[in-house]
């Protein structure tokens, strides 16, 4: 038996150079797919209780009352309006009188949804001064 030249064994190697790429790819994947639940809403600043703040007299003509009753009907000033009419009407009145303060009075039995819908319209009309009147 002829002794063959012993073949030199190649050293077995696991390529590790691309492991970094894999790890970074995983990081980037999770960075991109992670979504934090955003908190959304309509912001409003409540007035302090009247005994803590100085009472400010507001002229009646500078107040626009909006009532929302238990079934969601809207009374704007003296007329009943639909939800879609609130924004243009309020816009018009503010243009006439920039000092106008909107007082939103909602019935106790009104659904929260109806209240939010009107508040949304007021925000859309860019009303700066919104006052939430307490229900009787």
């Amino acid at each position, binding site marked *: 038996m002829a002794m063959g030249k012993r073949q030199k064994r190649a050293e077995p190697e696991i390529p*590790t*150079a691309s*492991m*970094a790429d*894999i*790890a*970074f790819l*995983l*990081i980037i994947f*999770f960075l991109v797919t992670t979504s934090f639940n*955003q*908190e*959304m*809403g*309509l*912001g*409003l*600043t*409540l*007035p*302090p*209780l009247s005994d*803590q703040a100085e009472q400010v007299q507001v002229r009646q003509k500078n107040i626009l009352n909006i009532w929302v009753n238990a079934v969601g009907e809207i009374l704007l000033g003296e007329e009943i309006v639909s939800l879609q009419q609130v924004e243009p009407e309020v816009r018009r009145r503010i243009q006439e009188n920039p000092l106008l303060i909107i007082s939103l009075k*909602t*019935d*106790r*039995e*009104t*659904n*929260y*949804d*109806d*209240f*939010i*819908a009107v*508040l*949304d319209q007021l*925000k*859309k009309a860019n009303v700066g001064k919104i006052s*939430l009147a*307490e*229900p009787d």
Partner: protein
Amino acid sequence: MPKIEKKQKAETVIPTASMADIAFLLLIFFMVTTVFVVYRGLAGIERPRAEMTERILEKRLVTHMWVNREGKINVDDVDLPLEDVPSIIYNKQEAIRQTFNRPMVVSIIADRDAPYGLLAEAMHRLREVEALNVNFATGRLTR
């Protein structure tokens, strides 16, 4: 002239084998140190929708108040009656004021069918303890 043997240059190699370990270590570090505070709140609340919905920018200033359609109130995962709202809100407000020196925001997460009277009552309690920044949680309405 005698031949001068050129010195063989050592090949420059940057070891990349440990890069993976570094990346995984970073990943694990951030996974371990990240803390999410997620309140469960009350179940089955359907938020109203509004077009002017905005994002709350400073989440750390927010205290959540859930109100469901039966009129149950829950503040940051504690069920409580309406009478206890001022005291717990006051404590939270003081804690936030001391930590961040900023006013707290109360996010009111109420069901669309919740009665407004209860919410008005709750807002009155908030005013009692001067928690005046409120936010009505809404979903975005797209037209």
